């Protein structure tokens, strides 16, 4: 089982990241210094946490486009709570963030599970709804640095052993998720439900309920990131993390999480997020015209995915799904049954 965490594909991606860092370090000396690398990891922490939540959802053949909106709403909610009641201890606020995020995720999960709306449509809807709710909640006003308590702002940037708490949070989440996905019934169910819903159903797995919990997990992590984001940038407004949901999907895809569900490792998602993080942090320091930046980062992503797609094709473990594809009527009937 452990071998799943670091397969050939992950090694290749890790190698690509190291080559990238080397190339960037050649253009911008100091880019590869331990301090700078710790900085990059810390900067990518939020993306890593969100990508792991997204991964859980993608594993079950769904997608969660509402993560960034969830982050925005939860971030606004905890910032306003902190501003209005500075006496609430930070752990309580963080629990609130997790709970609000999980509740918003549960709404997505419920729509996919019980109402049977395709995940992409349901979360596209809630993407707008959650941001709109953040607007209603705040009346469009910003929560500023001076309104937040020092501990609220300083906790994630406190340095422990050279890495801020924000970075350690990501490491903790990675460890928890890695154990959950490889060692628990829920984790294995995620893979089974996405890998072959029909077979999963025959094996006694409730595919819809698994999706529901995947959405809840993604939502809870987005809620946590809501607090981390607001604290890191010391301001909460409706548009924070606009478009960030696409980064989380990109991180998963680059990391080899199959959008068809059932395939992917925690290591892959983390490396995918780090890959994006390295590029995002390198572009400002290597003196590339801003007009080229977007084109370049898009191009690099496509190349990385191409590598991964070729890897995927070589593998021969999709026999069951390919067989099911030849009898689409059966799949549809079962998928319908699973959704209901």
């Amino acid at each position, binding site marked *: 089982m452990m071998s799943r965490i670091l397969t050939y594909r992950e090694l290749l991606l890790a190698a690509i990241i190291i080559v990238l860092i080397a190339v960037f370090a050649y253009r*911008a000396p100091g880019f590869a210094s331990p301090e700078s690398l710790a900085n990059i990891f810390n900067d990518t922490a939020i993306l890593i946490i969100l990508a792991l939540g997204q991964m859980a959802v993608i594993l079950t053949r769904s997608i969660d486009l509402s993560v960034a909106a969830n982050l925005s709403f939860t971030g606004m909610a905890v910032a306003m709570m902190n501003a209005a009641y500075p006496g609430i201890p930070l752990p309580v606020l963080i629990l609130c963030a997790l709970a609000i995020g999980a509740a918003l995720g549960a709404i997505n999960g419920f729509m996919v599970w019980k109402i049977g709306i395709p995940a992409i449509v349901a979360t596209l809807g809630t993407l707008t709804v959650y941001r709109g709710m953040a607007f209603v909640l705040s009346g469009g006003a910003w929560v500023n*640095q*001076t309104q937040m308590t020092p501990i609220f702002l300083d906790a994630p940037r406190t340095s422990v052993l050279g890495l801020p708490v924000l970075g350690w949070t990501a490491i903790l989440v990675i460890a928890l998720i890695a154990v959950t996905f490889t060692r628990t019934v829920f984790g294995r169910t995620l893979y089974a439900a996405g890998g072959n819903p029909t077979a999963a159903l025959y094996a006694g797995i409730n595919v819809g309920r698994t999706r529901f919990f995947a959405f809840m997990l993604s939502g809870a992590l987005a809620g946590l990131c809501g607090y981390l984001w607001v604290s890191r*940038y*010391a*301001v909460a407004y409706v548009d924070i993390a*606009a478009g960030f949901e696409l980064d989380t999907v990109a991180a998963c895809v680059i990391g080899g999480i199959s959008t068809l569900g059932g395939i992917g490792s925690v290591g892959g998602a983390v490396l995918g997020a780090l890959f994006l993080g390295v590029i995002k942090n390198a572009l400002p*320091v290597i003196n590339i015209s*801003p007009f080229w930046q977007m084109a370049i980062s898009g191009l690099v992503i496509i190349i990385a995915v191409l590598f991964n797609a070729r890897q995927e094709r070589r593998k021969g473990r999709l026999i069951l799904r390919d067989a099911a594809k030849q009898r689409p009527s059966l799949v549809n009937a079962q998928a319908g049954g699973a959704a209901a």
Partner: protein
Amino acid sequence: MKAFAKLALGTALGLALFAGSASAQNVKIGLLVKSLGNGFFEAANKGAQEAAKELGGVEVIYTGPTTTTAEGQIEVINALIAQRVDAIAISANDPDAVVPALKRAAQRGIKVISWDSAVGKDGRILHLNPSSNELIGNMCLKLAASHLPDGKGDFAILSATSTSTNQNTWIAEMKKQLPKYPGLNLVTTVYGDDLADKSYREAQGLLKSYPNVKVIVAPTTVGVLAASQAVKDAGKIGQVYVTGLGLPSEMAGAVHSGATKEFAIWNPIDLGYSATQIAYRLIKNETDGKPGSEINAGRMGKIKIGDNGEAAMADPFVYDKKNVDEFAKIF
């Protein structure tokens, strides 16, 4: 809601009529804002009342709809016409929708000007901008110079998106006026896309790639905040300063942390003051407000009317440690 607004309007109307009959020779100026209950406009009213007191014999009627709609403003304009005000100074919710109502007011001899948010050319005599692109560009350079020893050294610009019109206009103005500040050296311009995370990274990149940059100028609120945070997190407070355009409530934290000493934005009090002054001069026929004319605006000096009947009030107002908290309460 609607009924309440009408009731409130009716009451205001009644009160105003009553007050009007009490002091018949007073000049009445309607200060019509986008919506009531907005700190920015409350501050503008403060300036307008100051001007009224200074001029004497002036009554400023501060009014506006409860929500920022053009329909609401049209109702208020009609009410102001009925009150026989001498002038209306409007910050419009829609440049075109309010024009017919304002034209009706003009036909009854009411002098109409717009301020802050413009009205179409047909609907007003002149429009008062809080500042001009030229003055904003100059102010950004002035702020950069004041953060540098002897006004000499390297600075960088952190903008919003590379396609943002107002940002690019201001940056072009800064480049044009750079020769006025010898020793001030623009190293590079980077784009944070008005996203907190990207602006933060771009500011970090500046700190890394250009160790000589001592000032980051960000003419955008998201950028100036993110850059302040990046400087603070990098432990470079006192070595690198951040300045630019931002709102006092948002910037107060950065000013207190020392990441920024001064920043600028228009002052709503001055804006309300100037609008009232100009409206008064128009009523007294001291000026016709045609392009090219100069209008006396009390303590704000003479304001020149430019093309299209648009005027620029003054340099953006500079905020620092001393006054930022006071204004942070307003907007």
